[in-house]
């Protein structure tokens, strides 16, 4: 059971039996469940899962229903990471004592959290788990806003985005702070593996997830998850939005091994201007007014600078 699941192409992948069920209460077109399905289907091993409070948790476990076909726990907003780390520590203790009922099984430990639970509220807990190097994976479903509670800004919300606590109007262009570089922070823990993924590049994603499962030690995954409700676009355009995010390099896909070996895993053939990514979303609508147009130029410069920085790091291997 412990060997890696073979996934050569999408047809082969489609023979997986899903362990996440429909009739959850996520919005139509929500990318959360696409990401969760891609992660759960990447392995045949048993799973020990947890989810922080957030859209994923409240929508998949509405009493008396659960959408999970694996051991899954919801505890607090901040401690999904430590819950799974505790389960992993217990598993290791029982393994050492030889008291496991099925010692040949090789369970995988995965914690899910939204960007609010990871970038803000659960930050020190995640940092602790990464520092102690538990054999677990932490997945951020990054929709850049507290979508579950009505769209308040989180520290993942990018500049210019209109959120309910940083609304755009006659005197403000919305969110003023730049997005926190969570990948950089987590890689600086020198954990064995950290990666940024997007659901539209399923092959890249499955490869990284399998690499993460094969890694001994803490793994951090940051997944972009377009939110149809708070980013304000039509539910059918979720994958189009994700394509724009990766192709405009707003969400570059890369991995960091041991905090120093740096690989860019996806280089778009045709780089899309950031303006197209912004124009597709209602939360950036006000940036196209004359007085705020300079912000679009700043966006492009920031994304270009970040891409240049990533390429320099890849080249220098630091």
């Amino acid at each position, binding site marked *: 059971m412990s060997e890696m699941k073979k996934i050569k192409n999408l047809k082969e992948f*489609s023979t997986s039996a899903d362990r996440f*069920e429909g009739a*959850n209460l996520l919005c139509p077109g929500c990318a959360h469940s696409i990401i969760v399905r891609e992660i759960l289907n990447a392995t045949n091993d048993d799973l020990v899962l947890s989810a922080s409070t957030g859209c994923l948790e409240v929508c998949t476990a509405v009493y*008396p229903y*659960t*959408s999970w076909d694996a051991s899954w726990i919801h505890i607090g907003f901040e401690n999904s990471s430590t819950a799974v780390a505790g389960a992993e520590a217990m598993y290791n203790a029982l393994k050492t004592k030889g008291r496991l009922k099925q010692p040949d099984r090789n369970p995988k430990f995965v914690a899910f959290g939204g960007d609010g639970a990871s970038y803000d509220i659960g930050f020190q807990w995640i940092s602790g788990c990464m520092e102690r190097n538990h054999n677990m994976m932490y997945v951020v479903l990054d929709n850049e806003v507290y979508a579950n509670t009505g769209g308040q800004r989180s520290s993942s919300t990018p500049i210019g985005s209109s959120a309910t606590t940083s609304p755009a109007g006659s005197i403000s262009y919305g969110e003023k702070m730049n997005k926190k570089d969570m990948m950089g922070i987590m890689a600086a823990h020198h954990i064995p593996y950290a990666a940024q993924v997007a659901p539209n590049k399923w092959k890249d994603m499955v490869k990284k997830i399998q690499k993460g499962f094969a890694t001994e030690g803490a793994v951090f995954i940051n997944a972009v998850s377009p939110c149809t409700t708070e980013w304000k676009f039509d*539910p059918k355009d979720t994958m189009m939005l994700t394509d724009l995010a990766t192709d405009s390099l707003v969400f570059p896909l890369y991995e960091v091994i041991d905090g120093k070996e740096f690989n860019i895993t996806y280089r778009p053939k045709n780089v899309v201007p950031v303006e197209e990514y912004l124009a597709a979303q209602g939360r950036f609508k006000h940036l196209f007014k004359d007085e705020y147009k300079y912000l679009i130029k700043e966006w492009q410069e920031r994304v270009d600078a970040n891409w240049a920085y990533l390429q320099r790091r890849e080249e220098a291997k630091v």
Partner: protein
Amino acid sequence: MAKKGWDEFEIGAMLRTFDGSIDDIAGTRQEDRSYSENSSYMASVADWRLIKPVFNKDYCIDCQFCWIYCPDVSIISRDKKLIGVDMDHCKGCGICVEVCPTNPKSLLMFPEQADEETEIAQWPKKDEEEA
């Protein structure tokens, strides 16, 4: 399932997805699993839907893009072939239609009340401009 009052909930409630024991979940297809009444698989969100996808197997090339990108596990694929849409769990978001690469598309959205067979009989022809 009968609805419980606020003071009848168990503290620290645990829900079991399956009736009885199941050994290899990842190797068991959904139709072979014995779901308990607590699994959302037994629930339905069909009433969320205003438009529904209709699948025309004549044009399908089994690329499985709709399977991987379906957020609601509603595209049913067996033995690498797409065999239909799970209408109990589909919320009608339309992602499957957007990602379908065939020309004409093998999945299209129609109003909920549309008749499937009539729509398949009048399926749009190949769109030359887009080709």
